[in-house]
């Protein structure tokens, strides 16, 4: 195909896409206008039915809780897959150990970290932890929820790594309880659903007393599920970070000696 033909073909396609795009854009609802029946219905009902002031979390953890359970296990199996792919290569590790014995170089061989970064990252470590916990436990009241809180919690140890507090970082991410919490979080979600079954209701029915609207301990299973998701996500992300850095960390430890 000659260059001219290719350009012609491209021009044809570009004009077509521009036409379809403009036709679609002209038919969009006006700025800030909403055209579906469900959003308005849920926004009106959620506070009365579920005592949750954040409608989005009432939808994700209650009205369509079964979908979120599926998403939860997508994350769970993704973490499992990553950990399986990043498992330590035993034979190679032995080889490397011999070869690197007399070669203490490269990992620490770079510019020193500025004190500003060190102090600042250490200072916001606690803040990040607190904010993560707050977000995971207040999902039913304000925007946020388990997933966002969990990622924030998992990001906190990374700050230690950036501050080159490698020892503390390794102690946190390589802790055997991280794996336990990942499984416990995912299982907790499913168990809350099964608890409803034992009480004679459908799977994932909101069976816990709803409490006062606006309280932290309100909205029944929404708060409980959000907390479970927070634990699972935090542990899952921490596991992935550990999987990626495991070899590098052990090498740094060897070279540090």
């Amino acid at each position: 195909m000659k260059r001219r033909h290719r350009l012609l073909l491209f021009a044809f396609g570009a004009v077509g896409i521009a036409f379809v795009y403009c036709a679609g854009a002209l038919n969009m609802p006006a700025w800030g206008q909403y055209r579906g029946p469900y959003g308005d219905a849920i926004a009106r009902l959620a506070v009365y039915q579920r005592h949750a002031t954040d409608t989005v979390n009432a939808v994700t953890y209650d009205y369509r809780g079964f979908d979120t359970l599926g998403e939860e296990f997508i994350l769970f199996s993704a973490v499992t897959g990553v950990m399986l792919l990043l498992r330590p290569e035993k034979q190679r590790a032995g080889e490397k150990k011999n070869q690197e014995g007399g070669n203490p170089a490269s990992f620490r061989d770079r510019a020193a970290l500025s004190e500003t970064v060190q102090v600042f990252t250490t200072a916001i470590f606690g803040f990040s932890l607190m904010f993560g916990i707050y977000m995971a436990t207040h999902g039913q009241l304000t925007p946020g929820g388990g997933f966002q809180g969990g990622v924030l919690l998992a990001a906190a140890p990374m700050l230690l790594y950036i501050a080159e507090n490698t020892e503390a970082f390794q102690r946190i991410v390589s802790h055997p309880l991280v794996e336990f919490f990942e499984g416990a979080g995912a299982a907790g979600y499913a168990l809350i659903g099964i608890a409803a079954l034992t009480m004679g209701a459908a799977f994932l029915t909101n069976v816990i007393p709803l409490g006062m609207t606006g309280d932290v301990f309100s909205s029944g299973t929404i708060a409980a599920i959000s907390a479970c998701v927070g634990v699972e996500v935090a542990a899952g992300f921490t596991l992935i970070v550990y999987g990626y850095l495991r070899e590098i960390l052990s090498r740094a430890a060897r070279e540090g000696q």
Partner: protein
Amino acid sequence: MTVILGVALLALIAASALGVVRTDDVTCQTISLSFYGLLLALMFFLFRAPDVALAQITVGAIALPLMVMLAITRMKHHKEATGRARKEQQ
């Protein structure tokens, strides 16, 4: 007013997306990707979706760049280790 702000923000997002694609160095690209994620979060906030904005901040500005950085670090580390092993074999 909101419409102008929205259009300006969308234009900024398009420009920064182009910036991410046009950046050559992988590490710089990851940082610009993180910035692009933050802009997207700002857009969600402007479009009155604070929940999605928070999810976008945690995923687009923290988790995704972090994963890319970790993968790059690991690849560099792997390359160094295998390169050194080869040198010593020779």
